């Protein structure tokens, strides 16, 4: 028996199995080893899938041997394989960091439950990405969301409970909208298989339910991906969640939602309906620009490092959706590549921020005054990540913005190039705010003398910083995969 044809199922089942196993083990250490091993296994599987689909093949896997469109289909193409690599890779890097990080933030008797929740969250995110079934997307979305609410609520600040509750309300509204949209699609086409819906939609006579489905799905998914002005849940959730959780969510959760949006737009509704006949590109463009400018400006006024980075995430999501609004292959390439690049950058930044929190005891900028002199290496890493947010050449942020600018020029829209550069200047402002506080203020007297950090906190964070620079210099993997995925996605549409 060979495992190779079963890789799509194992991609989801491997982390899924470890969640209940972690609960049964009742030991934080054993659960840590198990879930980490599963995450690395999932990463290896995702790389295998990426390799199998790189040539443009689409892998289809029938769960329970019920052929699609009747049974549930797992479907891997270039785009989903690329997102799978990001999600599983981030889990594999963040989990080793978790051990020391949650040791400082979460009571020890809850550790095994933390790892069970982490495994479920990973299962959900991988499942959303790999499934080819509309209702299955909703189910996995709920699995990952429910696990996320718990993970956020575990933050040691009591406000984490309010943040998790706020996200629960907003996330549930988003999920309800998504399920209403899927219900309308099922009503009009009589099928739940994404590819099957896509082929049947053109023959549907009444158009109104389809438009309603599109509207519900767009709003619901945009709530989950925190598109301005639907981002209100994000800053609190990122600020008060445990550092390791913030790093994982910031790198993966909103990115998977972007993937769902792309999947519905291009594989289900089709480019012509979404982009040619509806004013959606204009709306998307407007909201993206608003996110880039408003959220960056708001970030500059924050007095908490994690909240500053959270607002920066909202701004960076603006770049991702900006590429989508161009409706061109280069724009889509920029979207997909920035999804990956921003995941790397934010993962690195939040992990390094977690290192500072571990020493300084909090992420308030007042507490971090002079931290650049006390912990020069870690603070330098944050500046490197900040350079990537700005888009300085040599970092992944530059690669993304380069392709965004190319896409804008292709459309002949010079003013958009100015807007991209202008919002990058705002990023300079908020990154400089950290630099100023970290280096040009006197360190407070209260900093502990022992500022050494365990290797398991530093190594994963620096691995991501290194990836930020590496993929900024050699973008063949990221841009190559993204361009190929964009080509395949556009080829699917009518």
């Amino acid at each position, binding site marked *: *028996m060979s495992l190779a044809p*079963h890789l799509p*199922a*194992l991609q989801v*089942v491997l982390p*899924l*199995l470890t*969640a*209940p*196993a972690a*609960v*049964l083990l009742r030991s934080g250490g054993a659960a840590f080893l198990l879930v980490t091993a599963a995450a690395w296994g999932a990463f290896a599987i995702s790389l295998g899938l990426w390799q199998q689909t790189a040539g443009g093949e689409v892998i289809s*896997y*029938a*769960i*329970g*041997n019920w052929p699609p469109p009747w049974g549930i289909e797992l479907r891997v193409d270039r785009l989903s394989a690329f997102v799978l690599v990001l999600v599983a890779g981030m889990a594999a890097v963040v989990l080793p960091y978790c051990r020391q990080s949650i040791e400082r933030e979460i009571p020890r008797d809850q550790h095994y439950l933390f790892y*069970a929740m982490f495994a479920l969250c990973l299962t959900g995110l991988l499942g959303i990405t790999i499934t080819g079934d509309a209702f299955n997307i909703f189910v996995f979305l709920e699995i990952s969301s429910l696990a996320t609410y718990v993970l956020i609520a575990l933050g040691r600040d009591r406000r984490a409970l309010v943040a998790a509750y706020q996200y629960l309300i907003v996330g549930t509204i988003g999920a309800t909208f998504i399920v209403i949209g899927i219900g309308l699609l099922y009503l009009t086409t009589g099928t739940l298989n994404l590819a099957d819906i896509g082929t049947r939609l053109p023959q549907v006579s009444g158009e109104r339910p389809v438009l309603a489905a599109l509207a519900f799905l767009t709003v619901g998914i945009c709530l989950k991906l925190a598109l301005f002005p639907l981002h209100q849940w994000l800053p609190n959730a990122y600020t008060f969640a445990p550092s390791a959780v913030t790093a994982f969510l910031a790198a993966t959760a909103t990115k998977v939602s972007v993937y769902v949006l792309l999947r519905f737009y291009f594989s289900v509704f089709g480019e012509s309906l979404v982009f040619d006949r509806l004013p959606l590109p204009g709306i998307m463009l407007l909201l993206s620009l608003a996110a880039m400018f408003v959220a960056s400006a708001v970030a500059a006024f924050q007095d908490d490092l994690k909240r500053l980075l959270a607002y920066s995430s909202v701004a960076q999501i603006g770049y991702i959706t900006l590429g989508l609004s161009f409706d061109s292959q280069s724009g889509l390439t920029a979207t997909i590549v920035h999804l990956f690049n921003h995941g790397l950058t934010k993962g690195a930044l939040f992990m390094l921020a977690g290192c500072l929190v571990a020493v300084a005891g909090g992420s308030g900028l007042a507490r971090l005054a002079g931290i650049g002199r006390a912990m020069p290496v870690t603070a330098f890493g944050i500046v490197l990540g900040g350079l990537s947010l700005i888009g300085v050449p040599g970092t992944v942020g530059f690669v993304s913005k380069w392709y965004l600018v190319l896409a804008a020029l292709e459309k002949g829209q010079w003013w958009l190039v100015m807007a991209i550069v202008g919002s990058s200047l705002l990023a300079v402002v908020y990154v400089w705010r950290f630099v100023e506080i970290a280096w040009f203020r006197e360190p407070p007297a209260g900093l502990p003398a022992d500022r050494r950090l365990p290797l398991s906190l530093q190594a994963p964070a620096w691995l991501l910083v290194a990836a930020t620079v590496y993929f900024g210099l050699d973008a063949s993997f990221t841009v190559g995969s993204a361009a190929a995925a964009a080509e395949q996605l556009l080829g699917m549409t009518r």
Partner: protein
Amino acid sequence: MKNDLVLRVVAKLFIPFILLFALYVQFHGELGPGGGFQAGVIAAAGVVLHALIFGLDAARRIVPERLVETMLAAGVLIYAGVGVAGLLLGGNFLDYFVLSGDPVYGQLRGIFWVEAGVFVTVSGVMLKIFYMFAARGRDEDGEEA
């Protein structure tokens, strides 16, 4: 309510039938209305009734917290285990056809074990939720009983 004779007698009469009905709903699930979820809820309701009449501690002696937590994890493992079994026997994930030489019997066997997993998890979760709410304000102080 421990001191109310009528309630005690009626509860003692009812609980065995509730549990028996849960098993009927469980095993009749693939033929009529029912299945693992409903049966799990009914079985948990039997224990909840016991807790309401005889007190939370009495219920915890019969079905301890630890068993409940094991149940809610074990059910998921049983369900996923059926899927992996199908995979190991040469089929796809959750493929019931290969679970037995006769495909129809394989389907029956697969459904049986999957529903068993659902039953175990659902009754575990129901009891866990009930225990947590019932214990609130009693053993507060952050101590889990």
